[in-house]
């Protein structure tokens, strides 16, 4: 139900501009691949494991391919040909390649007709695995129904996956609907995925496929106990965006943090690399029914939440347009925003309501990801708790989708078990007593909230026009987003971008481009 009288044609206009910005990027994306995308193909073909130096096999095979024949045609065809030579399964073939029993140069003698069937089989199996996780999750959701929105999102971050498990179980007992395992600091800058169960991390726990599996198993148990579906979240961002998406899909994760610009701006990752990687990662999410969470809230940790509100809206529109290009349906777009206005501003709550309601009405079918206050959080935990309570009220009133729990000790330490309980206690209280408040109220026509929302939309339109004119890459290099300038060819991971040859082959991607299973 609309509460703000937005100009429908203006909404159309901003969406059209965002689409044109995304389509411009898509042209670049379609002509390129990356080392990480190729490693993703190998992972989906069943290649896993590490050598004695803990270097993942997918990394080693791609390095070998690069050294022996180059990457421009993609790994798929060459790997299938290596399988023709080895007459063994994918994993064994990868090991034989790694031990130099087979060279990619040897595969040049294999005819395309002979490898085509294997390539087709491999890709069919991979797609089947993605469809399988989709079905598995759906089945679980029948057994354990999905709770009403806003879903309560709690983080665990001990660094030790086994300790995380205990913390997560307790959070679910207190009412959490979503558990996110915070990643070890700067994992996004690793050009490989660490391996196995891990018990040490920096400010978080490494994202590994084994850790995903351990946490999923624990949550499956918890949700059966509670009779409520509990989603598991991790991060598909950084230099291994699409590879993480593949690992996450294989372990039945439900949600991934995945933004089209976050890594570029805040982690100084090369923009071309990011755009190509995020496309592949989103195609996987679409097929495996994984909700992506975008990172617009981060802009407000560095820019003023009132002054820069329109950059959040603009980025949401661009993320949506790129998401649609990667076949994500609106229900899988957890577009981000945040409650970050300076608490000493008069009527700050009215601004917050205006921004939250604007997002709600611009993206009516998407589960918006709403972030709690962090920037103005105080080490006075009692004041912090009061701020979070008001954030909870804004969230239920505007029916947000994914509600990140504000924690009273946010400015002090990673949450203790009791901190999480305290946070959930306030959320449960507010969500219950104000459950239908949003259905009952309307915002005054021409009033503060409506005017504020309109102002932000006007500023968004002007901003998007500027970005469209410049092109997104140039816009980012000129510092239009979050006030951060990143040169087009700068940043980490740039050398891993590959221009596709006309003979480039990636049957998984071809299949994923046709859209999710749910669309057929």
């Amino acid at each position: 139900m609309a509460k703000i009288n937005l100009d429908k044609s203006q909404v159309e206009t901003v969406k059209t501009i965002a689409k044109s910005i995304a389509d411009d990027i898509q042209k670049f994306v379609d002509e390129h691949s990356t080392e990480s995308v190729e490693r993703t193909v190998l992972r989906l073909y069943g290649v896993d494991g590490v050598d004695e130096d803990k270097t993942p096999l997918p990394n080693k095979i791609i390095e070998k391919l690069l050294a022996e024949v180059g990457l421009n045609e993609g790994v798929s065809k060459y790997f299938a040909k290596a399988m023709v030579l080895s007459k063994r399964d994918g994993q064994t073939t990868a090991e034989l390649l790694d031990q130099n029993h087979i060279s990619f140069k040897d595969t040049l003698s294999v005819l395309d007709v002979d490898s085509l069937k294997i390539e087709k089989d491999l890709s069919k199996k991979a797609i089947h695995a993605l469809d399988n996780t989709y079905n598995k999750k759906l089945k679980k959701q029948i057994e354990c129904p999905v709770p009403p929105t806003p879903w309560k999102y709690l983080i665990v971050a001990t660094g030790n996956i086994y300790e995380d498990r205990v913390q997560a179980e307790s959070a679910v007992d207190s009412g959490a609907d979503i558990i996110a395992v915070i990643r070890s600091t700067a994992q996004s800058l690793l050009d490989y995925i660490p391996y196995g169960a891990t018990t040490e991390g920096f400010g978080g726990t490494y994202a590994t496929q084994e850790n995903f599996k351990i946490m999923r198993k624990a949550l499956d148990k918890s949700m059966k106990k509670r009779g409520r579906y509990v989603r598991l979240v991790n991060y598909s961002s950084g230099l291994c965006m699409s590879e993480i998406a593949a690992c996450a899909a294989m372990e039945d994760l439900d949600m991934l943090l995945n933004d089209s610009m976050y890594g570029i701006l805040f982690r100084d990752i090369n923009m071309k690399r990011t755009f190509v990687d995020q496309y592949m990662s989103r195609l996987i999410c679409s097929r495996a029914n994984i909700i992506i969470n975008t990172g617009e809230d981060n802009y407000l940790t560095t820019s003023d939440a009132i002054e820069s509100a329109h950059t959040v809206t603009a980025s949401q529109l661009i993320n949506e347009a790129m998401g649609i290009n990667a076949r994500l349906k609106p229900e899988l777009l957890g577009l981000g925003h945040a409650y970050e206005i300076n608490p000493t501003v008069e009527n700050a709550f009215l601004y917050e309501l205006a921004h939250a309601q604007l997002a709600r009405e611009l993206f009516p079918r998407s589960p918006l990801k709403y972030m709690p206050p962090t920037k103005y959080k105080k080490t006075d935990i009692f004041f912090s708790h009061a701020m979070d309570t008001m954030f909870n009220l804004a969230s239920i009133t505007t029916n947000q989708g994914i509600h990140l729990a504000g924690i009273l000790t946010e400015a002090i330490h990673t949450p203790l078990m009791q901190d999480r309980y305290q946070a959930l206690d306030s959320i449960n209280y507010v969500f219950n007593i104000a459950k239908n408040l949003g259905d009952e109220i309307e915002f005054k026509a021409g009033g503060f909230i409506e005017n504020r929302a309109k102002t932000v939309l006007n500023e968004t339109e002007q901003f998007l026009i500027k970005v469209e004119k410049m092109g997104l890459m140039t816009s980012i290099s000129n510092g239009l987003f979050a006030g951060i300038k990143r040169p087009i060819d700068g940043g980490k991971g740039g050398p891993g971008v590959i221009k596709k040859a006309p003979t480039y082959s990636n049957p998984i991607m071809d299949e994923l481009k046709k859209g999710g299973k749910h669309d057929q």
Partner: protein
Amino acid sequence: MTSKNLIKPYGDTMNDGVMQLAFTLPVENSARAKKAAEVYLTKLNLVDVAISSAKKLTDGFTYFVAFARAIPTLNYDEIEATEVQIKEMNFYQINALIKEKINRKLVIIGATIGTDAHTVGIDAIMNMKGYNMDYGLERYPEIEAYNLGSQVPPETLIKAALDYKADAILISQTVTQKDAHIRNFTEFIEMLEAEKLRNRFIIIAGGPRINNDLAIELGFDAGFGPGTLPSHVASYVANKMVERKGAQS
């Protein structure tokens, strides 16, 4: 000694000793659990313990809120606190200080040197996003920050510091196996001294096994260990620069 300097926590009456506490015990919520919480607080030398709330967090864990009175008094006259070495300043105060007192941007260059491939530390301090809600140096309008990344040879870092006319050099070392960090730090300082450049820059060491005493022993100006925020480093460099400028004029 006058009694006015003897202090105790204050609730609503002088010397009532009232304290509020919140904590979790790894036991199932029950009458016995509450008793255990009460007894535990008496072991802390608290009296008149009242467990005002006991709630189950999850199986086998109970959260308590309690009020109690503390017995000991403290002679406030005997309390001394050493001055913190770093002036605690926030992002805005640091930028304002640089603008007012130095009147040009500070140039800070950072890298992980030697074989160490870890950028966790240097990124936490320098990257825009920063660490723990504290903006990184790249974000400071009054600081020009250059993060050269990892595995940077000392000579490359020194050359870059000269090219960028750096005021301060940050060196991060995460790997400490076989004291690799000590060797790398020492090598860097020796190279600077050989080039007669040691006094040209403020040189700072950082990493999980670094403390200020160790860094100074190795010839650095300062050392920052775990939990360091970008604003600590920025405040240190800005204040040190102001100090140096003052000494010159």
